[in-house]
C-alpha cells in the first residue's frame, strides 16, 4: 500500500511565451525544462529552490493551472494531459494550499461558503452531508469552536487561522494529494511550526501524498521523507532528508545548506561561502549544466557543453552533476 505509485511525472516542460508589444513572439521563459519524479502514496516530499527556480510552476503544472508544453503526468495510473479543461477528474483528488492565506480566501465569502464551494462545484453530497463535512474538517484543523467561525469573513481571522482554513479547504474533498506552495512563508515564526505540525498530522492521519514547496531548508525536517533541489527549471538533486543533509552531492545543494543560519555566536566572525553570481535567465539558460557559471568545482570542457543526466551514486540518491558520474 505504502509503495503504491500516486503521481508519476516524466520529463515535463512548461514554457511561457514572451511577447513583444503584446503581439510578436519574443522567445520562451523555460520555467520547467525536463522534470521527472515519482511520488508514492502517503509520501511527503519537499521541493527546495531559489525564487524563480520553477518550484511554483511545477505545482501549477501538476494542478493543470499552467499549460504544460510537453511531458507526461499520470495520477493514480491515469494520464493527465496538463490542460485545465480536461483536469476535472483531478480536481477533487488534489488539494492546493497557497502561500498567502489572506489572498487565497475570497474576502467576500464566509468560512462556511469558502468550505462548501469546492464541494458544490464537485457535486459532493447533499447539503446536510456538506455541512457535516465542513464541521469535520474544521475540527480537524482546529478551527474551534466551529460555530464561532462558520459565519466569519476571512479578514476577521488571524493569519494562522486563515492558513488553517486554507488547509481545511484543501482537505474538504478528501484528496489523496496535497500540494503546498510555501504554506508558512507568510506567517509569523511562532505560527509556522504549528501549521507544519498540523499538516504533518493530517498527512499521517489520511495517508496523503504531499508536495511541499519551500525556499527555506530549515523547515524541511519537520515534514518530509524526500527532498528535491531545484535549480533553473530542473531538479538537480533528489534524496532522502537525512541523506541529503549528511551526504550532500551537488555543489548547489552544498551552497544552500551552507547558507542556513545557525544560532552560533561564532558565526559572526566566520566567512560563508556563497555561490557567486545570480540564478540564470530562464529565457536563455546557460549551455550544459545550468549551474556551471557559478560552480566552484566545474570540470572545464565538460560542464559547459553537456547537460548532466541524473546519476545515482548512492541508492535512491539522484544527482545531475558530472562530478558524480557513475
Amino acid at each position, binding site marked *: 500500500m505504502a509503495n503504491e505509485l500516486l503521481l508519476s511525472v516524466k520529463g515535463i516542460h512548461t514554457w511561457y511565451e514572451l511577447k513583444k508589444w*503584446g503581439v510578436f513572439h519574443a522567445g520562451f521563459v523555460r520555467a520547467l525544462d525536463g522534470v521527472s519524479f515519482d511520488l508514492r502514496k502517503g509520501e511527503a516530499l519537499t521541493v527546495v529552490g531559489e525564487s524563480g527556480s520553477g518550484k511554483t510552476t511545477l505545482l501549477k503544472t501538476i494542478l493543470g493551472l499552467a499549460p504544460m508544453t510537453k511531458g507526461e503526468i499520470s495520477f493514480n495510473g491515469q494520464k493527465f494531459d496538463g490542460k485545465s479543461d480536461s*483536469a476535472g477528474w483531478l480536481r477533487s483528488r488534489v488539494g*492546493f494550499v497557497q502561500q498567502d492565506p489572506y489572498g487565497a480566501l475570497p474576502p467576500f465569502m464566509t468560512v462556511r461558503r469558502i468550505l462548501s464551494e469546492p464541494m458544490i462545484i464537485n457535486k459532493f453530497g447533499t447539503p446536510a452531508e456538506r455541512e457535516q463535512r465542513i464541521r469535520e474538517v474544521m475540527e480537524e484543523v482546529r478551527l474551534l469552536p466551529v460555530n464561532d467561525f462558520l459565519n466569519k469573513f476571512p479578514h476577521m481571522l488571524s493569519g494562522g487561522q486563515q492558513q488553517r482554513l486554507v488547509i481545511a479547504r484543501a482537505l474538504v474533498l478528501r484528496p489523496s494529494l496535497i500540494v503546498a506552495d510555501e504554506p508558512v512563508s507568510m506567517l509569523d515564526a511562532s505560527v509556522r511550526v504549528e501549521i507544519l505540525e498540523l499538516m504533518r498530522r493530517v498527512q499521517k492521519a489520511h495517508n496523503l501524498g504531499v508536495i511541499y514547496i519551500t525556499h527555506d531548508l530549515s523547515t524541511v525536517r519537520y515534514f518530509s521523507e524526500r527532498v528535491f533541489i531545484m535549480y533553473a527549471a530542473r531538479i538537480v538533486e533528489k534524496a532522502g532528508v537525512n541523506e541529503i543533509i549528511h551526504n550532500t552531492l551537488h555543489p548547489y545543494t552544498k551552497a544552500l545548506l551552507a547558507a542556513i543560519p545557525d544560532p552560533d555566536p561564532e558565526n559572526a566572525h566566520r566567512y560563508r561561502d556563497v555561490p557567486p553570481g545570480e540564478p540564470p535567465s530562464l529565457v536563455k539558460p546557460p549551455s550544459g549544466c545550468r549551474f556551471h557559471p557559478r560552480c566552484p568545482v566545474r570540470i572545464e570542457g565538460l560542464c559547459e557543453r553537456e547537460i548532466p543526466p541524473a546519476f545515482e551514486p548512492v541508492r535512491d540518491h539522484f544527482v545531475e552533476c558530472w562530478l558524480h558520474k557513475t
Partner: protein
Amino acid sequence: MLRRLKELRRYPTAIFGIAVIGLLVLISVYAMIALPYSEAIRLWRGGPGVWDENPRTAVPAWFDLFTRDKLPRTIVVSTADAGVKTVERLPDGRNRIQIMLPFNYPYEGRNGFPTEVTLFSEAVYEGTTRPRLSVQWKTPAGETLTLATNRPMRTSDTYYISQDSQLLTRFGTLPEVGLFSEAAVGVPAAQRTAVKGEYAVVVQADLPEGGDFNAKLVVYGRAHGLAGTDHRRRDIMVALLWGTPLALVFGLLAAVGSTLTTFILAGIGTWYGGKTDFIFQRITQVNMVIPTLPILIMVGQFYSRSLWLMLGIIIAMSIFSGAMVTYRAMFLQAKEAPYIEAARAYGASNFRTVFRYLLPRIVPVLLPNFVTVVPSFVFLEASLAVLGLGDPILPTWGKVIHDAQTQSALYKGLYYWVLQPAVLLMITGFAFAMVGFALDRVFNPRLRTV
C-alpha cells in the same frame, strides 16, 4: 446581493438618500402623469395665449411667509365670469355694448400694487371701420377715472393700461400705482400704499348691428404658484417638475451606458488579454486626451442641441475613459488573485469563476461608483444648459438657471429663479452621494462596522 442591500437599513444616511431619490421618482411620475410630454413642451415653448394670465418674474406664493402683507396674486375678471354686459340699441341701428368688470382687490401696503394691468378684448363685427372703445376705472372711494376714449378696437385687442404713457403723465407715477392708490396730492410715488376694496372697469363700445365683444381684465400680481414665473411669464414649476424625470433619466442612462459598457469592455479586455486588451488600451489613451466638454459645445454649436444626442455623445466618449483604466486595473488584480487560482484548482468553471469570484470583488467597487457618478452626469447636463447648449425644447433645471442668468436674475434680486433649480440639483447630487457612500460601506467588507 439582496441581503447586502438590506443592510443599507443600518445607515440613516442611506435611508435618507433613498427617501429623497424616491421622492424625486414620485415627482417624476407625477410630472409625467399630470403634464404629458407634448403638453410640457407646448407650455415651455410658450407663445401667444399660453401664459397671458401669468405675471412676469413673479416670486413663488410661499414668499408670503416672509412678508408682512400678503403679496398680490393675479386677478382675472372677464365677461365669462363676473362681468356684467348690457346692450343698448342706438337710434342709428348700432349697438352700444357696455361691459362692467368688477373685482375685489384685497391687497394693501407698500408692496400691495400689482405689477401690470392689461385689458384684453375680442370683438366680432362686420365692416371696415373699427369701433371705438372707451375705458373707465372705478375706485372703492366711488371715483370714476376715464382711462381711454375713442380707442380704435381691433378684433383682438390688448390695452396695456400699465404702459399707457398718457396715464403715466397724468398720475405722475406708474399707472398701476396711480390706479390702486388714493390720489393724495403731494405724497411722493414711493410712499404710496395700495388701497383694498371693490374696483371695477367699465368698457364701452358701439358696434354695428350683429356685432358683439367680450373683455377680460388681468391685474397681474407679484406672486404666482409654488415656483414663481420667469421673464416669459412661464410657470417655473413646469421646468422644475419636468426637469426631475429628465435629470434622473439623463443621469441614470449616462451612468448605466458608460459605467456598464466600460465595465464589460474592461472585463473582456483583461480576460482575453493580448490584442483585444492592446487595442482597448490604445483607444482609451487616445480618448482620454480628447476633452469631452469642447466636443459637446462644438456639436451643440454646429449640429444639434438635442438632449438625447448629447447623451449619446457623452456615453460614447466616456466608454473609453479613465474608468476603463481603473476597471482594467481592478480586473487584472482580481484575475490574478490567489483565490481565483484556488477556485480553478478545485474545478470552478469559467462561468462560475467570473460570476462567483471575479464579479463579487469588482461589483462592490462598481455599484457605489455607479451611484455616485449619476449626479455628475446630471450636473454635466445642467452645465451644458447653463452654457446655452441645453436642449432647445425640453424644460430642464439647467435651462431655468440659464434663463435666470441671461436675465440677470441675481442682479435683480430674483433669487428664487436661480435657487430653486440649483437646490434641486444639489439635493439630487446629495441623495445619490449618500446612497453611494452607504453602498460602499455595505459592499466593502473591510469598511464594514461590526
